[in-house]
Protein backbone atom coordinates (compact mmCIF):
# COMPACT_ATOMS: atom_id res chain seq x y z
CA UNK A 1 0.00 0.00 0.00
CA UNK A 2 1.23 3.48 -0.85
CA UNK A 3 1.93 5.86 1.99
CA UNK A 4 -0.86 8.23 0.88
CA UNK A 5 -3.46 5.44 1.04
CA UNK A 6 -2.04 4.33 4.37
CA UNK A 7 -2.31 7.87 5.73
CA UNK A 8 -5.94 8.08 4.65
CA UNK A 9 -6.66 4.73 6.28
CA UNK A 10 -4.87 5.75 9.47
CA UNK A 11 -6.95 8.93 9.61
CA UNK A 12 -10.15 6.88 9.60
CA UNK A 13 -8.83 4.56 12.31
CA UNK A 14 -7.66 7.40 14.52
CA UNK A 15 -9.93 10.38 13.76
CA UNK A 16 -8.73 12.44 16.75
CA UNK A 17 -5.07 12.04 15.93
CA UNK A 18 -2.85 14.13 13.73
CA UNK A 19 -1.75 12.05 10.73
CA UNK A 20 1.20 13.30 8.72
CA UNK A 21 2.75 11.68 5.70
CA UNK A 22 6.42 12.05 6.57
CA UNK A 23 9.46 11.70 4.32
CA UNK A 24 9.65 7.97 4.95
CA UNK A 25 6.65 6.77 6.91
CA UNK A 26 3.15 7.76 7.91
CA UNK A 27 3.39 9.43 11.31
CA UNK A 28 0.48 9.47 13.73
CA UNK A 29 0.68 11.84 16.69
CA UNK A 30 -1.67 10.90 19.51
CA UNK A 31 -2.72 12.01 22.94
CA UNK A 32 -1.34 9.57 25.54
CA UNK A 33 -4.90 8.62 26.53
CA UNK A 34 -5.67 7.36 23.00
CA UNK A 35 -2.41 5.48 22.48
CA UNK A 36 -3.40 2.01 23.59
CA UNK A 37 -6.79 1.97 21.85
CA UNK A 38 -5.40 3.23 18.53
CA UNK A 39 -2.42 0.86 18.66
CA UNK A 40 -4.79 -2.03 19.25
CA UNK A 41 -6.93 -1.03 16.26
CA UNK A 42 -3.88 -0.63 14.03
CA UNK A 43 -2.65 -4.06 15.06
CA UNK A 44 -5.95 -5.85 14.51
CA UNK A 45 -7.10 -4.05 11.35
CA UNK A 46 -6.42 -6.40 8.43
CA UNK A 47 -5.33 -3.56 6.15
CA UNK A 48 -2.77 -2.03 8.48
CA UNK A 49 -1.91 -5.35 10.21
CA UNK A 50 0.96 -3.96 12.30
CA UNK A 51 2.07 -7.19 13.91
CA UNK A 52 5.68 -6.33 14.72
CA UNK A 53 7.04 -3.67 17.04
CA UNK A 54 10.42 -2.64 15.71
CA UNK A 55 11.48 -0.18 18.36
CA UNK A 56 10.33 2.17 21.09
CA UNK A 57 12.32 5.38 21.40
CA UNK A 58 12.04 7.63 24.43
CA UNK A 59 12.39 11.27 23.51
CA UNK A 60 13.08 14.46 25.41
CA UNK A 61 11.68 17.40 23.42
CA UNK A 62 12.98 20.01 25.83
CA UNK A 63 9.71 20.76 27.61
CA UNK A 64 7.81 17.56 26.85
CA UNK A 65 8.80 13.95 27.09
CA UNK A 66 7.52 11.44 24.62
CA UNK A 67 7.80 8.07 22.95
CA UNK A 68 8.10 7.08 19.32
CA UNK A 69 6.95 3.63 18.19
CA UNK A 70 8.12 2.13 14.92
CA UNK A 71 5.60 -0.51 13.88
CA UNK A 72 5.85 -2.85 10.93
CA UNK A 73 3.44 -5.07 9.12
CA UNK A 74 5.15 -8.32 8.18
CA UNK A 75 2.14 -9.20 6.02
CA UNK A 76 2.08 -6.01 3.95
CA UNK A 77 5.65 -4.79 4.42
CA UNK A 78 4.93 -1.22 5.44
CA UNK A 79 5.76 0.83 8.50
CA UNK A 80 3.83 3.32 10.59
CA UNK A 81 5.26 5.57 13.28
CA UNK A 82 3.23 6.41 16.38
CA UNK A 83 4.16 9.36 18.55
CA UNK A 84 2.91 10.60 21.83
CA UNK A 85 3.94 13.33 24.26
CA UNK A 86 3.42 14.13 27.90
CA UNK A 87 4.20 17.52 29.40
CA UNK A 88 4.51 16.47 33.06
CA UNK A 89 8.25 16.05 33.48
CA UNK A 90 8.10 15.06 37.14
CA UNK A 91 5.71 12.19 36.72
CA UNK A 92 5.38 11.30 33.04
CA UNK A 93 3.04 8.36 32.46
CA UNK A 94 2.23 6.57 29.23
CA UNK A 95 0.29 3.34 28.68
CA UNK A 96 2.40 0.27 28.16
CA UNK A 97 1.95 -1.66 24.91
CA UNK A 98 3.34 -4.93 26.33
CA UNK A 99 -0.06 -6.57 26.11
CA UNK A 100 -0.11 -6.00 22.35
CA UNK A 101 3.52 -6.67 21.52
CA UNK A 102 5.60 -8.49 24.15
CA UNK A 103 8.70 -7.01 22.49
CA UNK A 104 7.76 -3.72 24.13
CA UNK A 105 8.77 -5.04 27.54
CA UNK A 106 12.50 -4.42 27.21
CA UNK A 107 12.17 -1.36 25.01
CA UNK A 108 9.92 0.30 27.58
CA UNK A 109 12.19 -0.65 30.43
CA UNK A 110 15.00 1.03 28.53
CA UNK A 111 12.94 4.21 28.04
CA UNK A 112 12.08 4.18 31.74
CA UNK A 113 15.70 3.67 32.70
CA UNK A 114 17.15 6.41 30.55
CA UNK A 115 14.35 9.00 30.48
CA UNK A 116 12.21 8.25 33.50
CA UNK A 117 8.99 7.70 31.56
CA UNK A 118 6.70 5.42 33.58
CA UNK A 119 4.65 2.90 31.63
CA UNK A 120 1.24 2.07 33.08
CA UNK A 121 0.42 -1.67 33.26
CA UNK A 122 3.95 -2.73 32.44
CA UNK A 123 4.51 -6.22 33.92
CA UNK A 124 7.98 -5.57 35.28
CA UNK A 125 8.99 -1.92 35.24
CA UNK A 126 12.46 -1.84 36.77
CA UNK A 127 15.62 -0.08 35.75
CA UNK A 128 17.50 -1.95 33.07
CA UNK A 129 21.07 -0.72 32.67
CA UNK A 130 21.64 1.60 35.61
CA UNK A 131 20.97 1.32 39.32
CA UNK A 132 18.45 3.41 41.19
CA UNK A 133 20.98 6.04 42.32
CA UNK A 134 21.33 7.43 38.81
CA UNK A 135 19.22 10.17 37.33
CA UNK A 136 17.80 9.83 33.84
CA UNK A 137 20.78 10.41 31.55
CA UNK A 138 19.04 10.84 28.21
CA UNK A 139 17.10 13.84 29.48
CA UNK A 140 18.46 17.08 28.09
CA UNK A 141 18.69 18.67 31.54
CA UNK A 142 20.72 15.78 32.98
CA UNK A 143 23.89 16.98 34.67
CA UNK A 144 26.81 14.81 35.64
CA UNK A 145 29.91 16.81 36.55
CA UNK A 146 32.06 13.76 37.11
CA UNK A 147 31.38 11.46 34.19
CA UNK A 148 30.42 13.85 31.41
CA UNK A 149 33.04 16.42 30.49
CA UNK A 150 31.78 19.61 28.90
CA UNK A 151 33.45 20.34 25.58
Amino acid sequence: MENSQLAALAATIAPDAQVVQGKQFVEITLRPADLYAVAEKLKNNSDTALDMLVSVTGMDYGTDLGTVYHLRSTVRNHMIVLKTRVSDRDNPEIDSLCALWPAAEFHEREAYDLLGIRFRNHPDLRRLFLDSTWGFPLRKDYKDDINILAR
Partner: protein
Amino acid sequence: MEEAVKAPVAEQEEYVINMGPQHPSTHGVLRLVVSLRGEIVRNVEPHIGYIHRGIEKMCESITYPQIIHLTDRMDYLSAHINNEAVCLAVEKALGIEVSDRVKYIRTILSELTRIQSHQLFWATFGMDLGGLTCFFYGLRDREMVLDIFEETCGGRMIVSYNCPGGLMNDIHPNFQNRTKEFIKYFRKTLPEYDRLLTGNVIFQERLRNIGTVTREQAIAWGLTGPVGRASGFSCDVRKHNPYSAYDRVTFNEILYKEGDSFHRYKVRMDEMWESMNIIEQLIDNIPPGAYAEKMKPVIKLPEGEYFQSVETARGELGVYIVSDGNKNPYRVKFRSPNFVHLAPLNLMSKGAKIADLVAINGSLDLIIPDIDR
Protein backbone atom coordinates in the same frame (compact mmCIF):
# COMPACT_ATOMS: atom_id res chain seq x y z
CA MET B 1 14.81 -42.51 60.89
CA GLU B 2 11.82 -41.75 58.68
CA GLU B 3 13.01 -38.24 57.70
CA ALA B 4 16.21 -39.38 56.03
CA VAL B 5 14.23 -41.17 53.30
CA LYS B 6 12.87 -37.86 51.98
CA ALA B 7 13.99 -36.69 48.56
CA PRO B 8 17.00 -34.37 48.50
CA VAL B 9 16.20 -30.74 49.19
CA ALA B 10 17.33 -29.64 45.73
CA GLU B 11 14.40 -31.35 44.03
CA GLN B 12 11.77 -29.98 46.35
CA GLU B 13 12.69 -26.37 46.64
CA GLU B 14 13.34 -23.69 44.14
CA TYR B 15 16.76 -22.16 44.51
CA VAL B 16 18.53 -19.37 42.74
CA ILE B 17 21.96 -19.32 41.17
CA ASN B 18 23.87 -16.59 39.42
CA MET B 19 25.24 -17.41 36.00
CA GLY B 20 27.70 -14.69 35.16
CA PRO B 21 28.58 -11.86 34.84
CA GLN B 22 31.87 -13.71 34.42
CA HIS B 23 30.86 -16.99 32.88
CA PRO B 24 32.51 -18.52 29.82
CA SER B 25 29.24 -19.34 28.05
CA THR B 26 27.79 -15.84 28.21
CA HIS B 27 30.56 -14.46 25.96
CA GLY B 28 30.74 -11.22 27.85
CA VAL B 29 29.37 -9.62 30.95
CA LEU B 30 25.84 -10.93 31.02
CA ARG B 31 24.39 -12.01 34.33
CA LEU B 32 21.55 -14.49 34.35
CA VAL B 33 19.74 -15.06 37.63
CA VAL B 34 18.40 -18.57 37.19
CA SER B 35 15.73 -20.12 39.42
CA LEU B 36 16.09 -23.87 39.46
CA ARG B 37 14.20 -26.82 40.77
CA GLY B 38 16.68 -29.64 40.61
CA GLU B 39 18.11 -29.33 37.15
CA ILE B 40 15.01 -27.76 35.63
CA VAL B 41 15.02 -24.05 34.87
CA ARG B 42 11.94 -22.31 36.29
CA ASN B 43 12.80 -18.72 35.55
CA VAL B 44 15.64 -16.77 33.97
CA GLU B 45 16.12 -13.12 34.66
CA PRO B 46 18.81 -11.34 32.66
CA HIS B 47 20.66 -8.50 34.34
CA ILE B 48 22.45 -6.24 31.91
CA GLY B 49 24.22 -2.92 31.95
CA TYR B 50 27.71 -4.00 32.98
CA ILE B 51 29.20 -2.34 29.92
CA HIS B 52 26.62 0.34 29.33
CA ARG B 53 28.64 3.21 27.91
CA GLY B 54 25.81 5.55 27.01
CA ILE B 55 26.55 5.51 23.29
CA GLU B 56 23.19 7.14 22.52
CA LYS B 57 23.98 9.99 24.91
CA MET B 58 27.50 10.37 23.52
CA CYS B 59 26.11 10.60 19.99
CA GLU B 60 24.18 13.71 20.96
CA SER B 61 27.37 15.69 21.46
CA ILE B 62 29.47 14.52 18.51
CA THR B 63 29.26 14.87 14.74
CA TYR B 64 27.94 12.31 12.27
CA PRO B 65 31.35 11.09 11.00
CA GLN B 66 32.35 10.55 14.63
CA ILE B 67 29.25 8.44 15.34
CA ILE B 68 30.54 5.86 12.87
CA HIS B 69 33.39 5.03 15.22
CA LEU B 70 31.04 4.41 18.13
CA THR B 71 28.88 2.01 16.12
CA ASP B 72 31.89 -0.28 15.67
CA ARG B 73 31.87 -0.78 19.40
CA MET B 74 28.28 -1.99 19.59
CA ASP B 75 28.17 -5.24 17.69
CA TYR B 76 31.89 -5.60 17.12
CA LEU B 77 31.46 -8.66 14.90
CA SER B 78 29.26 -6.74 12.47
CA ALA B 79 31.30 -3.53 12.55
CA HIS B 80 31.08 -2.89 8.79
CA ILE B 81 27.34 -3.34 8.72
CA ASN B 82 26.79 -1.07 11.71
CA ASN B 83 28.88 1.63 10.02
CA GLU B 84 26.88 1.19 6.87
CA ALA B 85 23.59 1.73 8.71
CA VAL B 86 24.63 5.18 9.94
CA CYS B 87 26.15 6.09 6.57
CA LEU B 88 23.00 5.12 4.70
CA ALA B 89 20.84 7.13 7.10
CA VAL B 90 23.04 10.23 6.69
CA GLU B 91 23.23 9.83 2.91
CA LYS B 92 19.47 9.41 2.67
CA ALA B 93 18.94 12.55 4.74
CA LEU B 94 21.28 14.59 2.55
CA GLY B 95 19.99 13.08 -0.69
CA ILE B 96 23.40 11.78 -1.70
CA GLU B 97 23.61 8.90 -4.12
CA VAL B 98 26.90 7.05 -3.75
CA SER B 99 28.63 5.53 -6.76
CA ASP B 100 28.08 1.92 -7.80
CA ARG B 101 31.66 1.20 -6.85
CA VAL B 102 30.94 2.12 -3.23
CA LYS B 103 27.75 0.07 -3.23
CA TYR B 104 29.53 -3.01 -4.52
CA ILE B 105 32.42 -2.73 -2.09
CA ARG B 106 30.08 -2.15 0.83
CA THR B 107 28.07 -5.22 -0.08
CA ILE B 108 31.15 -7.42 -0.44
CA LEU B 109 32.53 -6.24 2.88
CA SER B 110 29.19 -6.73 4.59
CA GLU B 111 29.05 -10.32 3.41
CA LEU B 112 32.64 -10.96 4.45
CA THR B 113 31.67 -9.56 7.84
CA ARG B 114 28.73 -11.94 8.00
CA ILE B 115 30.96 -14.89 7.15
CA GLN B 116 33.54 -14.08 9.81
CA SER B 117 30.82 -13.47 12.39
CA HIS B 118 29.21 -16.83 11.68
CA GLN B 119 32.63 -18.49 11.76
CA LEU B 120 33.19 -17.14 15.24
CA PHE B 121 29.68 -18.22 16.19
CA TRP B 122 30.44 -21.75 14.98
CA ALA B 123 33.74 -21.76 16.83
CA THR B 124 32.38 -20.61 20.17
CA PHE B 125 29.11 -22.51 19.93
CA GLY B 126 31.01 -25.76 19.47
CA MET B 127 33.19 -24.85 22.40
CA ASP B 128 30.17 -24.08 24.61
CA LEU B 129 28.82 -27.54 23.90
CA GLY B 130 32.10 -29.29 24.58
CA GLY B 131 33.80 -29.49 21.19
CA LEU B 132 37.02 -27.55 21.61
CA THR B 133 38.35 -28.42 18.13
CA CYS B 134 35.76 -26.11 16.54
CA PHE B 135 37.33 -23.17 18.24
CA PHE B 136 40.68 -23.73 16.52
CA TYR B 137 39.17 -24.47 13.11
CA GLY B 138 36.82 -21.50 13.24
CA LEU B 139 39.43 -18.99 14.32
CA ARG B 140 41.94 -20.32 11.78
CA ASP B 141 39.58 -19.54 8.91
CA ARG B 142 38.31 -16.30 10.38
CA GLU B 143 41.88 -15.02 10.43
CA MET B 144 41.89 -15.02 6.62
CA VAL B 145 38.91 -12.65 6.50
CA LEU B 146 40.45 -10.41 9.12
CA ASP B 147 43.64 -10.25 7.05
CA ILE B 148 41.60 -9.03 4.08
CA PHE B 149 40.05 -6.36 6.32
CA GLU B 150 43.41 -5.35 7.68
CA GLU B 151 44.89 -4.82 4.25
CA THR B 152 42.02 -2.74 2.92
CA CYS B 153 40.62 -1.00 6.01
CA GLY B 154 43.62 -0.81 8.31
CA GLY B 155 41.71 -2.44 11.15
CA ARG B 156 40.85 -6.02 11.79
CA MET B 157 37.69 -5.92 13.88
CA ILE B 158 37.04 -2.27 14.59
CA VAL B 159 37.25 -1.09 11.01
CA SER B 160 35.37 2.23 10.60
CA TYR B 161 35.86 1.90 6.85
CA ASN B 162 32.54 3.34 5.72
CA CYS B 163 32.04 7.04 6.10
CA PRO B 164 29.17 9.32 5.04
CA GLY B 165 29.43 9.62 1.28
CA GLY B 166 31.48 6.52 0.59
CA LEU B 167 34.57 4.86 1.94
CA MET B 168 37.65 6.10 3.80
CA ASN B 169 40.02 4.83 1.12
CA ASP B 170 39.92 2.86 -2.07
CA ILE B 171 40.33 -0.91 -1.80
CA HIS B 172 43.80 -2.41 -1.66
CA PRO B 173 45.08 -3.78 -5.01
CA ASN B 174 45.20 -7.26 -3.49
CA PHE B 175 41.61 -7.13 -2.26
CA GLN B 176 39.92 -8.92 -5.14
CA ASN B 177 42.52 -11.66 -5.44
CA ARG B 178 42.65 -12.38 -1.76
CA THR B 179 38.88 -12.45 -1.46
CA LYS B 180 38.64 -14.89 -4.36
CA GLU B 181 41.36 -17.04 -2.84
CA PHE B 182 39.48 -17.06 0.45
CA ILE B 183 36.20 -18.07 -1.20
CA LYS B 184 37.95 -20.87 -3.09
CA TYR B 185 39.52 -22.08 0.15
CA PHE B 186 36.39 -21.73 2.25
CA ARG B 187 34.18 -23.58 -0.23
CA LYS B 188 36.41 -26.57 0.45
CA THR B 189 36.61 -25.98 4.20
CA LEU B 190 32.97 -25.35 5.04
CA PRO B 191 31.89 -28.98 4.47
CA GLU B 192 34.55 -29.84 7.04
CA TYR B 193 32.58 -27.82 9.60
CA ASP B 194 29.55 -29.97 8.93
CA ARG B 195 31.51 -33.18 9.17
CA LEU B 196 33.03 -32.10 12.45
CA LEU B 197 29.98 -30.76 14.26
CA THR B 198 26.65 -30.66 12.42
CA GLY B 199 26.26 -34.40 11.99
CA ASN B 200 27.46 -35.25 15.49
CA VAL B 201 24.75 -37.15 17.38
CA ILE B 202 25.55 -35.69 20.80
CA PHE B 203 25.56 -32.19 19.34
CA GLN B 204 22.18 -32.71 17.67
CA GLU B 205 20.64 -34.31 20.75
CA ARG B 206 21.58 -31.27 22.78
CA LEU B 207 19.96 -28.85 20.33
CA ARG B 208 16.92 -30.39 18.70
CA ASN B 209 13.62 -29.26 20.24
CA ILE B 210 15.47 -27.06 22.71
CA GLY B 211 14.42 -23.44 23.08
CA THR B 212 11.70 -23.65 20.46
CA VAL B 213 10.10 -20.43 19.24
CA THR B 214 7.08 -20.43 16.95
CA ARG B 215 6.68 -18.07 14.03
CA GLU B 216 3.96 -16.09 15.84
CA GLN B 217 6.14 -15.70 18.91
CA ALA B 218 9.09 -14.62 16.75
CA ILE B 219 7.03 -11.84 15.17
CA ALA B 220 5.47 -10.74 18.46
CA TRP B 221 8.87 -10.54 20.15
CA GLY B 222 10.43 -8.91 17.10
CA LEU B 223 13.05 -11.62 16.61
CA THR B 224 14.94 -11.08 13.37
CA GLY B 225 18.03 -12.44 11.69
CA PRO B 226 18.92 -16.14 11.99
CA VAL B 227 16.81 -16.43 15.16
CA GLY B 228 13.65 -15.25 13.40
CA ARG B 229 14.35 -17.13 10.18
CA ALA B 230 14.85 -20.42 11.99
CA SER B 231 11.20 -20.06 13.08
CA GLY B 232 10.02 -19.40 9.54
CA PHE B 233 9.68 -15.63 9.87
CA SER B 234 10.85 -14.12 6.61
CA CYS B 235 12.56 -10.99 7.91
CA ASP B 236 15.68 -10.50 5.82
CA VAL B 237 16.11 -6.75 5.31
CA ARG B 238 18.34 -7.50 2.34
CA LYS B 239 15.34 -9.08 0.59
CA HIS B 240 12.47 -6.92 1.81
CA ASN B 241 14.07 -3.47 1.76
CA PRO B 242 17.28 -3.88 -0.25
CA TYR B 243 20.06 -1.36 0.25
CA SER B 244 23.50 -0.96 -1.37
CA ALA B 245 23.89 -3.60 -4.10
CA TYR B 246 21.58 -6.28 -2.67
CA ASP B 247 18.96 -5.60 -5.34
CA ARG B 248 21.46 -6.60 -8.02
CA VAL B 249 22.39 -10.04 -6.70
CA THR B 250 20.42 -13.22 -6.46
CA PHE B 251 20.47 -15.17 -3.23
CA ASN B 252 18.13 -17.26 -1.15
CA GLU B 253 16.72 -16.26 2.17
CA ILE B 254 17.34 -19.24 4.43
CA LEU B 255 14.14 -20.24 6.18
CA TYR B 256 13.34 -23.15 8.47
CA LYS B 257 10.12 -23.68 10.35
CA GLU B 258 11.25 -25.71 13.37
CA GLY B 259 12.50 -22.75 15.41
CA ASP B 260 14.72 -24.72 17.78
CA SER B 261 18.37 -24.17 18.66
CA PHE B 262 19.58 -26.60 16.01
CA HIS B 263 17.88 -24.71 13.22
CA ARG B 264 19.17 -21.39 14.45
CA TYR B 265 22.58 -22.98 14.00
CA LYS B 266 21.61 -24.37 10.57
CA VAL B 267 20.47 -20.96 9.30
CA ARG B 268 23.91 -19.54 10.04
CA MET B 269 25.71 -22.43 8.38
CA ASP B 270 23.59 -22.06 5.23
CA GLU B 271 23.96 -18.29 5.25
CA MET B 272 27.71 -18.65 4.88
CA TRP B 273 27.13 -20.41 1.54
CA GLU B 274 24.75 -17.66 0.45
CA SER B 275 27.23 -14.96 1.47
CA MET B 276 29.89 -16.62 -0.65
CA ASN B 277 27.47 -16.68 -3.60
CA ILE B 278 26.78 -12.97 -3.18
CA ILE B 279 30.49 -12.12 -3.04
CA GLU B 280 31.22 -14.18 -6.14
CA GLN B 281 28.57 -12.34 -8.12
CA LEU B 282 30.12 -8.98 -7.27
CA ILE B 283 33.85 -9.43 -6.81
CA ASP B 284 34.80 -9.44 -10.51
CA ASN B 285 32.37 -6.70 -11.47
CA ILE B 286 33.35 -3.85 -9.15
CA PRO B 287 32.75 -0.87 -11.45
CA PRO B 288 35.27 1.97 -11.71
CA GLY B 289 34.33 5.26 -10.12
CA ALA B 290 34.88 7.44 -7.10
CA TYR B 291 35.29 5.70 -3.77
CA ALA B 292 33.74 8.65 -1.97
CA GLU B 293 31.46 11.53 -2.83
CA LYS B 294 32.66 15.02 -2.07
CA MET B 295 31.15 16.00 1.26
CA LYS B 296 31.02 19.32 3.04
CA PRO B 297 33.59 19.54 5.85
CA VAL B 298 30.79 19.92 8.40
CA ILE B 299 27.85 17.62 7.81
CA LYS B 300 24.52 19.05 8.94
CA LEU B 301 21.38 17.03 8.45
CA PRO B 302 18.20 18.88 7.53
CA GLU B 303 15.65 19.01 10.32
CA GLY B 304 13.64 15.82 10.44
CA GLU B 305 13.68 12.16 11.35
CA TYR B 306 15.47 9.40 9.53
CA PHE B 307 15.19 5.67 9.99
CA GLN B 308 17.37 3.11 8.30
CA SER B 309 17.53 -0.61 8.94
CA VAL B 310 20.17 -3.04 7.76
CA GLU B 311 20.68 -6.75 8.18
CA THR B 312 23.63 -7.42 10.48
CA ALA B 313 24.92 -10.91 11.13
CA ARG B 314 22.45 -11.13 14.04
CA GLY B 315 19.36 -9.45 12.72
CA GLU B 316 17.85 -6.12 11.97
CA LEU B 317 19.75 -3.09 13.19
CA GLY B 318 17.66 0.05 13.03
CA VAL B 319 19.17 3.51 13.26
CA TYR B 320 16.74 6.29 14.11
CA ILE B 321 18.19 9.79 13.88
CA VAL B 322 16.29 12.89 14.92
CA SER B 323 17.98 16.03 13.65
CA ASP B 324 17.30 19.65 14.55
CA GLY B 325 19.52 20.94 11.76
CA ASN B 326 22.75 21.12 13.73
CA LYS B 327 25.99 19.26 13.23
CA ASN B 328 25.13 16.93 16.11
CA PRO B 329 21.99 14.82 16.11
CA TYR B 330 19.24 15.72 18.57
CA ARG B 331 18.62 12.08 19.40
CA VAL B 332 19.98 8.79 18.09
CA LYS B 333 18.41 5.45 18.83
CA PHE B 334 19.89 2.13 17.85
CA ARG B 335 17.43 -0.72 17.63
CA SER B 336 19.94 -3.46 18.21
CA PRO B 337 19.01 -7.06 17.40
CA ASN B 338 20.71 -8.58 20.44
CA PHE B 339 18.76 -6.39 22.85
CA VAL B 340 15.54 -7.69 21.32
CA HIS B 341 16.74 -11.31 21.28
CA LEU B 342 17.60 -11.30 24.96
CA ALA B 343 14.05 -10.43 26.05
CA PRO B 344 12.41 -13.82 25.28
CA LEU B 345 15.24 -15.85 26.83
CA ASN B 346 12.99 -16.68 29.76
CA LEU B 347 10.26 -17.87 27.42
CA MET B 348 12.67 -20.13 25.54
CA SER B 349 14.40 -21.71 28.49
CA LYS B 350 11.53 -22.27 30.92
CA GLY B 351 11.29 -25.98 31.63
CA ALA B 352 14.62 -26.80 30.01
CA LYS B 353 17.63 -28.19 31.84
CA ILE B 354 20.36 -25.87 33.05
CA ALA B 355 22.75 -27.31 30.44
CA ASP B 356 20.18 -26.45 27.75
CA LEU B 357 20.29 -22.85 28.89
CA VAL B 358 23.90 -22.75 27.72
CA ALA B 359 22.85 -24.15 24.35
CA ILE B 360 19.96 -21.70 23.97
CA ASN B 361 22.10 -18.78 25.00
CA GLY B 362 24.76 -19.86 22.51
CA SER B 363 22.28 -20.32 19.68
CA LEU B 364 21.06 -16.74 20.11
CA ASP B 365 24.65 -15.62 19.46
CA LEU B 366 24.39 -12.61 21.76
CA ILE B 367 26.96 -9.83 21.67
CA ILE B 368 26.74 -8.07 25.01
CA PRO B 369 28.10 -4.61 24.02
CA ASP B 370 25.28 -4.44 21.47
CA ILE B 371 22.73 -5.09 24.21
CA ASP B 372 24.13 -2.50 26.58
CA ARG B 373 25.24 0.16 24.08
